[in-house]
């Protein structure tokens, strides 16, 4: 199986001197759904941002869909991301002055591509947002906003979708909707999804869980159940606590 994303000894040290990633090597097979878990501050967001080309690692290499992310300047990184990567944020990051539909087609328009209105409508319909296309984000609930954000991440048909705590701000029902949606993106459309989460129930939607502690890999779990993920996470906390 080819890899959707592969990371080769990734290091990231922030300006302040904090080492957030301390040599992470990992592969995410194409068409898989992986959850990334770990204690707060273990470097999950940093890992995702470096892998998605939103931030530059201090060392190491990133491959997405077979292509290496070698871009050095911001514009080149943006262009690399445009075609290959979709990103979903915990706090949505929708543009408040654009309507739902305008938000969704924005990545296409920025890439200078025509937006196929019918297809966009179809995607919005499928996400249950068909009648909200002309609304501004401020008039949507958190769950609806996050579904718009997922639609936006899908619109360029990227090979890989990264999601950083996409359900962190949602209630149980909205969270379930978003997770089911991400699951369909993998099973129905063959995309690769990498999702950071604190919630073992959310992790159970994934094919596997990758654990992170202190910027290093700390094991993985195949076909996770919520209980198993919670248990591993708790031990991870113990170990990190004991070391400190």
């Amino acid at each position: 199986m080819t890899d959707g994303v592969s990371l080769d000894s990734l290091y990231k040290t922030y300006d302040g001197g904090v080492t957030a990633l301390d040599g992470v090597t990992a592969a995410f097979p194409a068409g898989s759904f992986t959850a990334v878990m770990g204690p707060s501050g273990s470097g999950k967001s940093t890992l995702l941002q470096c892998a998605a080309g939103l931030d530059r690692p201090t060392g190491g290499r990133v491959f997405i869909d077979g292509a290496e992310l070698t871009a050095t300047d911001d514009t080149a990184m943006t262009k690399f991301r445009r075609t290959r990567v979709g990103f979903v944020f915990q706090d949505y990051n929708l543009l408040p002055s654009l309507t739902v539909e305008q938000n969704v087609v924005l990545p296409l328009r920025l890439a200078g591509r025509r937006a196929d209105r019918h297809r966009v409508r179809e995607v919005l319909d499928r996400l249950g947002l068909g009648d909200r296309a002309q609304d501004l984000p401020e008039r949507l609930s958190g769950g609806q906003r996050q579904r718009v954000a997922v639609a936006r991440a899908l619109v360029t048909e990227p090979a890989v979708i990264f999601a950083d705590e996409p359900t962190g701000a949602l209630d149980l029902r909205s969270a379930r909707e978003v997770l089911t949606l991400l699951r369909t993106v993998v099973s129905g459309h063959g995309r690769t999804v990498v999702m950071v989460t604190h919630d073992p129930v959310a992790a159970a939607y994934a094919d596997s869980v990758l654990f992170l502690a202190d910027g290093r890999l700390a094991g993985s779990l195949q076909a996770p159940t919520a209980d198993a993920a919670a248990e591993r996470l708790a031990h991870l906390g113990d170990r990190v606590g004991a070391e400190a």
Partner: protein
Amino acid sequence: MIAVALRNLRHRPGGFVATFLSAFLGAALLMAFASLLDTASGVDAAAGHESLTTTATVGGGWCLIIVAFAVTSTLTLAIRQRDQQIALLRSVGATGPQLRRMIVGEAVAVALVASAAAVPVGLVLGRVLVGLLHDTGQVATSVGAAFGPIALGAGFGVTLLGSLVAGVAAARRAAGHGRRKQRPRLRRLGAALFLLTGANCAVLTATLMYGKGIDAMQTAGQAGIWASIGLALLAPELLRLVTAVLSPLVRLFGAPGELALQGPRLSSAVMPVLLFTGIATGTVYMQGIEDRAAAGTTQPGYAQDIQTLNYVVVGLITVFVAIMLVNTLIAATAHRRREFAQQRLAGATRGQVTAMVALEGLLITVTGVLGGLVAALFTVLPFGSARAGRVWPDASPAAFGIVAAIAVMLTATALLRTARRSVRGPATAAVRS
């Protein structure tokens, strides 16, 4: 809440720079003109008492209107940009009156510090004005410049009062309702009043002042200033109109063009461009008409006063409004750091964000310059008719071209430099702050 206000000032001094600058410059200008009245007390008619009081009342009067307007609009803008912080404070239990005390407290504290800092500048500017009047022989050289209670009273009084009124109004808007409520009707009513006053002055100039020579300047000059303020108050409507007309052109630029058309309207940035263009164009052409009409004729003694005055006032106001312009644009753009970051996260390159800002700048400048041109006509047309007997001035459009070019240059520099600074660094960090 006063404690929160002071902590805000200490923690985020950057957020108050714009307000501080406009209050500081305004107070300095007012003090300079008001100090002429201090100087005039104890000066007799022969030594130039009247020159001093005329300069003070005419120059000071113009400044008063513009400073009050500038301070209020900057402060309102600054407060509006903090609706997030205000919503946060409300969500942790701050009541309306508490928020109001915080906002008004900040406004008054900034005004106080700004007025105090303006004292030395006002003192020096006042001396320069008296020096000018010495040089043109309108005031005896034996008269020394004074700086006393009138200067201090006017400087502190107007700045504090303006800030207080603007603070209370903005605080009511911010704290009174959960969602900020615009008051377009009140604004439009104000605009209509200012425009009517301007039209009235214009009509008076063309009728009552017809053939009265240089005296027609008084009403003609006012007409343009009132009209500028009236049109500045209509900035949102004017910007919408210009945007609609120019949208096919802007759309040619692709996604940045679409974003510029869809984004939040920056009508607050139109105001200073319009004021600058209107007042500068109006005064320059008015003085040009006067100079041509007066050439070779004998003039009343105070014609010289008025000429000096016109150039001094227009110079000072131009500098003031230019600083306001840069000030407002920087404040309006810096506050959009998060918006720019979100666009970049959605796939916009830095170049695309900058292009969007440039196109917005284009819409702002076109609106401001055209509006200013219309406002200037309130001065130029009636004065031309009253002074030279011809409505359309016999003058080259070059001066207007220069004014417009200065407006374009100031807007472009301020906008692009701030935008470039705001897109520095990774976008992921910018959405978090």
